[in-house]
């Protein structure tokens, strides 16, 4: 029983971190910080 609780807790913890990382990636993408390779914002 305690093993199942621990596994559940770990899953919830991992899901939380996954959501946080996804939110951070999305935020960076909106800021333009994760432009695809080769893409530029301007040409001088």
């Amino acid at each position: 029983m305690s093993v199942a609780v621990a596994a559940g807790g770990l899953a919830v913890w991992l899901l939380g971190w996954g959501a946080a990382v996804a939110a951070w990636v999305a935020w960076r993408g909106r800021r333009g910080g994760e432009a695809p390779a080769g893409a530029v914002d301007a040409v001088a």
Partner: protein
Amino acid sequence: MRRVEQVMGFPVSLRIDDASVPESAADAVFAWLHQVDARFSPFKPDSEVSRLDRGELSDPSEDLTEILDLCEHYRTATGGAFDVRLPGRGLDPCAVVKGWSVQRAAELLRAAGAKRFCLNAGGDVVTAGGPWRVGVRHPEHADQLCTVLHLTDGAVATSARYERGDHIIDGRTGRPATGLLSLTVVAPTLTEADSVATAAFAMGTEGVHWAAGLEGCEVFAVDAGRQVLRTPGFPTARTGATVA
């Protein structure tokens, strides 16, 4: 917010990423640039520059005085290679006016509360709140970049022969400057980046070293032999430096 307009004969594109900045900030930028074109174009007979050149303007405005002071500064600094009063030609301060006016436009944006923007005036770029990725056009292949740089808050300008041919004259010889294919300068302001790029280009290969010695300036140049010259601090994001 994104906006593109044709001003001074080239496209000016503006991107502002701050949702709180009103459209009127972009309106003010383009109104200013149109005003600059009307006031300082040597191609408009009734501009301040044309009237001054004809001796019809005895008391130049504060802005024109500032522009002419900058021109004189760079003429002296380059030993006469950069000269807006070439013999047989009218007064042409365009090389300074463009960078100066676009930098002033960027300051208008900051005053309006813009923290993250990219203002690109025909290849002269001012950025704020980066990271921004700015490509440097290959001097011989218009559809290729020869390098990409990262800018956070700063400016970048390129002088080259590809846009208008041999249009930059070495004032010391009166002949077109042909020592370089292109020269790009990164500086804190576009006033400096654009003026230094043109002035250094007029000097030829020695101009690369001159510009590299200026505080706050980083340089990327391709000489007539297709050799890439760059300062160690040039903020290259990735190199595709296949200048061949």
